[in-house]
C-alpha cells in the first residue's frame, strides 16, 4: 500500500499551520468568487495567480486548489437562494434548489447541496489517490507520439461530446491553437504571426484570455439580464443539518451514479457543467417520480451537485499525471505549476513527491474545511448578494483589470483582456463553446512541440501514430471520439428505418 504511505506523508506536508491557514483563506476567497457573478473558479484563480509567484509552490497550489473547491461550493448558494447560478455548473442546481427555497426549505436544500458536493469530491479524490500513481507510472513510458495522441484524444473528445455544433467547437479550438502559436517559435526562434507588433512577441497569455472570456464576458452577460437580486434568506442550524443528513443515505444510488458520471466527465474533458446537467437528466429518468423534478425534489439538488464537484475534482487527475487539464480551471492551475517551475506529468510524481502528495492530501482536508466553512457562513454570503450590482460590477471590472495587468505588468494585456471579454460575450451568445479555446491556448505549445518531435522521429510520416499498440490504440480511441456524433446519427437513421419497416 504505497499510496497510503505517500498519502500519510502528504498529510504531514499539508497539515501545517500556515498551510491550514492558506486553505482557509483559499476556501473563503473561493466561496466569495463562486457567489459573485463574473468571477468564477477559472478567472478567479487566474487573477490571484500572480500573487502566488513568490510563495512556496506547495502552499500556493493548496491555496489555489482550495479557491477552486470554494468556488464549487459557492455556486450552490446563489443557485438555491437567488435562483442565479453563480457558476455555470450550478445551473442545474437551480431547477430544484430554488423551488425548495421558496417552500421554506432553503436550509435543507443547502445542506444537501454542500453534503453532496463533499461526497462527490471525496470519491473523486479517492480515485485520484489510487489511480494517479498508476497512470503516472504508465505515462513514464510515453514518448512524443504518445503525448500527442493523448492530447489529440482530449481535443477529439471535445468535438465528439459537445452539444454545440461541431463547426463551432472546431472554430473555438483552432482559434485557441492559432493564438497559442503567436509569438516566438520556441524551437526555431522565428517570430510567427506578430505582423510587426512588438507587444505580440510574447504571444497571448491564456491567463489574460481566461480573465477576459470568463470575467468581462460574464459581466456583460449578467448585465443583459438586468440584475435585481431577489432571494430567500437562510440560516443553517445543526438540527436541520442532522435532519437532512439522516435522510440522505436513502439516495445512495443517486450519489453513486452522479459520482461515476462526474468522474468520467472530469477525466475526459467534459467538465463540471455538462456533468451536472447529465447527472440531473439521468436522476430524473431513473426516478420513480420524474414529475416531481423541477418542483423541489431533493434528488434534483443532490445529483448535479455531486456530479459537478466530482468532475471538478477528477479534472485534476489528467492534469497532474499527464499534464493535460480536464477543465479550464484545471488548465489555469496547470499554468500555475509551469510558472512555479514544475512540469506536470509523470515525472512530477518521481521528482516532487512532497508537492504531489501534499496537494492530494490537501484535497481531502480542503473539502472538509470547505464543508464546515460553507455550512456555518451561509447567511454572510447571502448578505453579500444584497450589495447592489452597481457596486459589485465596477469592483469586479477593477479586479479583472488588476489581474490582467499583474500577469506581465503590461498595459497591452489589459486591452487584450477587453477584446477577449467582447469575444467571450459574442461566443456565449452565439453558442460557441469557450472551454476548447482555453484548453487549446494552454496546450497549444505542448501539442505542437510533441507533434514536431514525433514528426522528427518518424521523418515526417504520420504512420508513427500507429507504430505501436499503445499509441495506436490511443489514436484509435481519439478517432472513435471524433466519429462519435456521426455514429449517433447513423444509429438514429437506422432506427428510423427500422421503425418504418
Amino acid at each position: 500500500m504505497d499510496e497510503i504511505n505517500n498519502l500519510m506523508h502528504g498529510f504531514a506536508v499539508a497539515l501545517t499551520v500556515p498551510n491550514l491557514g492558506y486553505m482557509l483563506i483559499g476556501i473563503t476567497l473561493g466561496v466569495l468568487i463562486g457567489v459573485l457573478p463574473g468571477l468564477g473558479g477559472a478567472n478567479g484563480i487566474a487573477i490571484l495567480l500572480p500573487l502566488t509567484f513568490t510563495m512556496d509552490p506547495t502552499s500556493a497550489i493548496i491555496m489555489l486548489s482550495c479557491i477552486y473547491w470554494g468556488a464549487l461550493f459557492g455556486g450552490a448558494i446563489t443557485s438555491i437562494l437567488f435562483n442565479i447560478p453563480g457558476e455555470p455548473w450550478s445551473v442545474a442546481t437551480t431547477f430544484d434548489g430554488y423551488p425548495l427555497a421558496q417552500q421554506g426549505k432553503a436550509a435543507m436544500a443547502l445542506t444537501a447541496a454542500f453534503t453532496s458536493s463533499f461526497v462527490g469530491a471525496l470519491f473523486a479524490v479517492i480515485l485520484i489517490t489510487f489511480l494517479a500513481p498508476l497512470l503516472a507510472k504508465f505515462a513514464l513510458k510515453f514518448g512524443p507520439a504518445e503525448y500527442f495522441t493523448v492530447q489529440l484524444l482530449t481535443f477529439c473528445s471535445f468535438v465528439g461530446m459537445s452539444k454545440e455544433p461541431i463547426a463551432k467547437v472546431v472554430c473555438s479550438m483552432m482559434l485557441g491553437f492559432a493564438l497559442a502559436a503567436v509569438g516566438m517559435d520556441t524551437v526555431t526562434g522565428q517570430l510567427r504571426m506578430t505582423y510587426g507588433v512588438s507587444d505580440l512577441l510574447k504571444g497571448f497569455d491564456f491567463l489574460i484570455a481566461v480573465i477576459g472570456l470568463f470575467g468581462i464576458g460574464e459581466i456583460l452577460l449578467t448585465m443583459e439580464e438586468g440584475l435585481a437580486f431577489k432571494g430567500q434568506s437562510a440560516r443553517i442550524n445543526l438540527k436541520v443539518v442532522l435532519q437532512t443528513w439522516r435522510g440522505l443515505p436513502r439516495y445512495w444510488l443517486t450519489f453513486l451514479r452522479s459520482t461515476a458520471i462526474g468522474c468520467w466527465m472530469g477525466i475526459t474533458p467534459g467538465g463540471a457543467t455538462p456533468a451536472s446537467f447529465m447527472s440531473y437528466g439521468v436522476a430524473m429518468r431513473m426516478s420513480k417520480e420524474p414529475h416531481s423534478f423541477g418542483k423541489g425534489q431533493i434528488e434534483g439538488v443532490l445529483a448535479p451537485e455531486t456530479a459537478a464537484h466530482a468532475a471538478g475534482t477528477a479534472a485534476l487527475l489528467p492534469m497532474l499525471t499527464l499534464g493535460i487539464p480536464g477543465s479550464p480551471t484545471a488548465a489555469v492551475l496547470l499554468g500555475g505549476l509551469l510558472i512555479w517551475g514544475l512540469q506536470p506529468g509523470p515525472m512530477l510524481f518521481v521528482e516532487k513527491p512532497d508537492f504531489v502528495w501534499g496537494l492530494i492530501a490537501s484535497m481531502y482536508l480542503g473539502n472538509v474545511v470547505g464543508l464546515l466553512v460553507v455550512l456555518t457562513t451561509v447567511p454572510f454570503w447571502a448578505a453579500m448578494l444584497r450589495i447592489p450590482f452597481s457596486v459589485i460590477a465596477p469592483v469586479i471590472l477593477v479586479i479583472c483589470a488588476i489581474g490582467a495587468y499583474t500577469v506581465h505588468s503590461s498595459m497591452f494585456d489589459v486591452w487584450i483582456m477587453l477584446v477577449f471579454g467582447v469575444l467571450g460575450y459574442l461566443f456565449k451568445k452565439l453558442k460557441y463553446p469557450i472551454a476548447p479555446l482555453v484548453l487549446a491556448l494552454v496546450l497549444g505549445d505542448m501539442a505542437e512541440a510533441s507533434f514536431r518531435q514525433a514528426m522528427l522521429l518518424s521523418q515526417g510520416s504520420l504512420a508513427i501514430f500507429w507504430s505501436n499498440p499503445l499509441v495506436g490504440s490511443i489514436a484509435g480511441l481519439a478517432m472513435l471520439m471524433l466519429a462519435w456524433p456521426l455514429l449517433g446519427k447513423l444509429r438514429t437513421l437506422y432506427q428510423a428505418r427500422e421503425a418504418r419497416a
Partner: protein
Amino acid sequence: MSDDSQASAEPADHILARGPELGVALLLMVLAVLVITDSLRVGIGWADDGPRSGYFPFYIGLMLLAASTTIFISTLLKWRSLKAVFAERQQLITVTAMLVPTVVFVGGIALLGIYVASVLLIGYFMRRYSDFGWTATALVSVGVPLTFYAVFERWFLVPLPKGPLEHLLGL
C-alpha cells in the same frame, strides 16, 4: 428613448442572431487567412533540422478556415429561416452601458493609473445606477482602490499602473 423604440415597428425590438453569426464567422475567416499567410511566410515544409515554424500552424489555420467558412456559408444558405434572437434591443443598450465605461476605464488606466480610474469607474456606476448619496459613493469608490493598494503593493509587493497623481504623491 424607450418610447421611440416601442412606437417603431416590431422587428426593431430585437436583433436576430444571424447578423452577428455571419460577422463572427467572417472575423474567424480573416484570422485563419492571417495564420495561413504568415505560416507560408515562415515556411511550412522541412528544414535541415526538422519541421519549419509554419508546419503546425498552417494546418491549424486551414482547419479554422474550413470550420468558419462552413458556418459562414450555412448561415447564408439558411438566412431566411434563421429567426433566432441575438438579444433584445433593451438588453443591448444595457450591455453597451456596461461596455463603454469599461473601455473608457481601461483607457483611463493608461492615462491616470489604475487607482484614479477605479475611483471614477466605481463612482460613476454608483451615482448612475443606484441612489447612493455622495458620502457613500465617495467612501466606497475611494475605499476599494485603497484596499487594493494595501493588498497588492504593500502586502504582496506587486506594482500596479500609476498615473500623475501617484507621482505627485511620490508613491
